[in-house]
């Protein structure tokens, strides 16, 4: 729209517009609405971006049979479903935002923390995924399947961070909890 839209400097944009008249004409309507917002196509995303090794992060093995949130309210269930849909649609940022909404309603719901860990893992934010899974564990009480799944996430997150030994330890804990629960 603004061909030289990168300028936030209002005094300079008029001069630069000379070069862009033709194209801009078509876009007047839009530009009016956009006026004042000087964001550019490449507006840097200010949220920290965690890069993983490059390859899209595989979700931790065997996407869990959704552990039902203990006595989750209808509001939280609805948000969880929405979040899942966004995640499936390749919108992890939206999925995370919905999980955060759910967490505001039930801040100590271990399942929600785990889902958030899952999303972060998919986004390649391994360190945060590990922390969130640990947080989920701290609220999991006696729910061993949930804990086992958290240790799987932790194992994957550690692998992504290059911590092979740590990943193995986490995997062992996951296995132990998994077998104990059956």
């Amino acid at each position, binding site marked *: 729209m603004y061909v030289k839209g990168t300028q936030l400097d209002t005094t300079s944009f008029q001069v630069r517009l000379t070069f862009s008249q033709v194209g801009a004409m078509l876009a007047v309507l839009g530009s009016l609405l956009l006026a004042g917002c000087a*964001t550019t196509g490449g*507006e840097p*995303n200010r949220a920290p971006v965690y890069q993983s090794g490059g390859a899209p992060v595989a979700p931790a093995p065997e996407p869990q049979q959704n552990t039902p949130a203990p006595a989750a309210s209808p509001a939280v269930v609805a948000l969880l479903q929405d979040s899942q849909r966004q995640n499936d649609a390749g919108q992890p940022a939206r999925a995370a*935002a919905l999980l955060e909404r759910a967490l505001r309603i039930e801040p100590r719901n271990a399942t929600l923390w785990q889902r958030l860990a899952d999303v972060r893992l998919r986004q390649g934010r391994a360190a945060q995924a590990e922390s969130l899974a640990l947080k989920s564990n701290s*609220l999991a009480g006696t729910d061993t399947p949930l804990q086992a799944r958290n240790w799987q996430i932790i194992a994957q997150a550690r692998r992504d961070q290059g911590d092979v030994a740590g990943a193995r330890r986490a995997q062992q804990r996951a296995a132990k909890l998994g077998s104990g629960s059956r």
Partner: protein
Amino acid sequence: MARRPARKPSSKGSSAKRKKPKRHPLRRRVLLYGLPLLLIVVAGYVVFLDYTIRSQFEGRRWELPARVYARPLELYPGMALRTGDLNHELKMLRYRPVRTATEPGSYSRTGELYHIVTRAFTFWDGKEPSHDIRVRIGAGAVSTLEDARSGKHLSLLRFDPALIASIYPSHNEDRILVKLSDVPPILIKGLIAVEDRQFYSHHGINPRAIARALWANLRAGHTVQGGSTLTQQLIKNYFLSNKRTLWRKANEAAMALLLELHYDKQQILQAYLNEVYLGQDGRRSIHGVGLASQFYFQRPVQELGLSRSALLISLVRGPSYYDPRRHPKRALARRNLVLDVMAGQGVISAAQAQAAKRRPLGVTADAPSGISPYPAFLDLVRRQLRRDYREQDLTSEGLQIFTTLDPTVQRDAERGLVQQLRQLERDHRMKRDKLQSAMIFTRIESGEVVAVVGGRDPRFAGFNRALDGVRQVGSLIKPAMYLTALSQPQRYTLATLLEDEPFQVRNADGSVWAPHNYDKTFRGKVPLYQALAKSLNVPTARLGMTLGIPNVIDTLHKLGITREISPYPSMLLGAVSLSPLEVAQMYQTLAGGGFRTPLRSIRAVLNADGKPLGRYPLTVKKVASGSSVYLLDTALEKVTEEGTGKDVHAFLPADITVAGKTGTTDDLRDSWFAGFTDNLLGVVWVGTDDNQSSQLTGSTGALRIWGRVMQLLRPTSLQLTPPGDIVNAWIDPASGRATEQGCKGAVQLPFIKGSVPAAGAPCTSKGLNWIQRLFR
């Protein structure tokens, strides 16, 4: 038209320089060559005008202030909500109480049953449509939430968020951009009927209107009528000059023709609606119908009815002359004239005009001020924003900033603080207004800051004590020491006996530090949890020296204190200066089970189009053993059960569990309380600005404010989740050894597996209890 301050430095001044060269009608040859030359100059001038007006139109970038929003209210069945809270929210959102709610932004109420039509709003994570809902509140919670039309139960919905501030550019231009489709058709039709009837048929100028105006003006001997089309008015608005010269008029007319050549009527109309000058608020000029609607009626332009639309149309002719707040009679007469014209033109029926004319102006008494009612919270937001955005972007790019402020908590925090400060001054016979205070409230797991009060006048945007009041924290520091100890379960448990005997340390400079307890007595030996609950200085200082000052400082840093701390022994008893915000960060980690969550005041930032620029996601980091923190938090519960924080139960019911800690500094200069319930953490400081004695301890001062605010907020009881390796055991506090339930003085305490002390305490059954035991 009334004028506004000049705004845009630009190349427009050059038009004067480009005046045609003077003609010298002396010789024919000159004319022969001069005429083509003149044509070229004129053509060039037209091209120049064309360029100028098109750049102006297309490149128009309004400097839009950033809009700052509170958290949106989320409504769901079962949520704790009182009618008072919902009313407050609806008032903040300027929802209108009506008999039958049909329009977005209106509601009706019968007792505890509300019928609300919410406004649609675009959030960072998607659009929330308008909902037509029935809400029933029962026993302090949402008992029913359903779609009013279908009767279907709803699981969740979001209100639009309350606007809490705008961050203006230096020249205070303000605007709310609207799309043509946002503007009620009646407003557009009325505007055209009154200002430019031939708008859809003329080509930028309307010769007949000009002739009519000229004739009218000639007859009157002065200007009584304008013949400007909306297009001309728009151009006049672009190139603000007040001069009514013929040259200017000619320029305007030429530009109007050019503008119409390039753009269609809808585009021009939309630009006009956003550009038109409609009022002045001190230094802030009110442009466009979007902002004017908020400024005069405190509602979005979509919600304007006929009579209010007519009033806005009246203002086009002279916002100061017809200012409905200063000259209501004049404004009313003009509005009614506009309604008559609209009826005369067939835009509305005569009956509609009559009905609308009977209505009052509908203007709110006070213009919404550009000044935020929450200066202390906004201060925190601005600091966070300044780390990520340039000041210029904040004031001109129309950013939408979604914050974490909870208006209900903020209201109760302010009320509690103001009430209790007065009460404290009365109770302690102090001079009025001697005390100052600050507080900050956060949500525990998310780290969201929900309320900030920077001083006893919450509206005053001065020194923000919640962020900049850096004061000694006294005993608030102690949990760092006890956590350091409890992180070594093989050495320390809650039952470990600490020595409470005279004790002194020689500082590096040769001076001697000899701490004493607040009550100046020594108790010999006390169990660790009691030393913290009763805030005993001597055992704590001894413990700190044994643990090592650097280790304690290390714990403080892990908990989230980033400030450098000098490793003097006196720091162990709180000779460390922190702001309430920093204290909140430290206690956040304790309340969060050893997971540090950076305190946040912003959830997301969007650009003017609703595209997310920045997200401030929830992040956690494990910095301490969850089990050790669980032990510490249990000791902090003891503070309010039997220790220095007992008085919180003067405000809260006995069955509400609270964890907290008092802090008092030398000569009673500072009074602190930091405490948390299930989901809310609050830190309160009380003292004086000149660092004189406040005559208050943590218990007699800050705790009373904290307690009052929590009482207003009705928190739910703290329920710590014991990690898997926690076991409970009965302990004899005198010996620190394990004993049995029912033995005299026995208390039940949590331990990390493997650290339960050995048995061996003599058991004297207490009182009549042995009879009970006989029958067990």
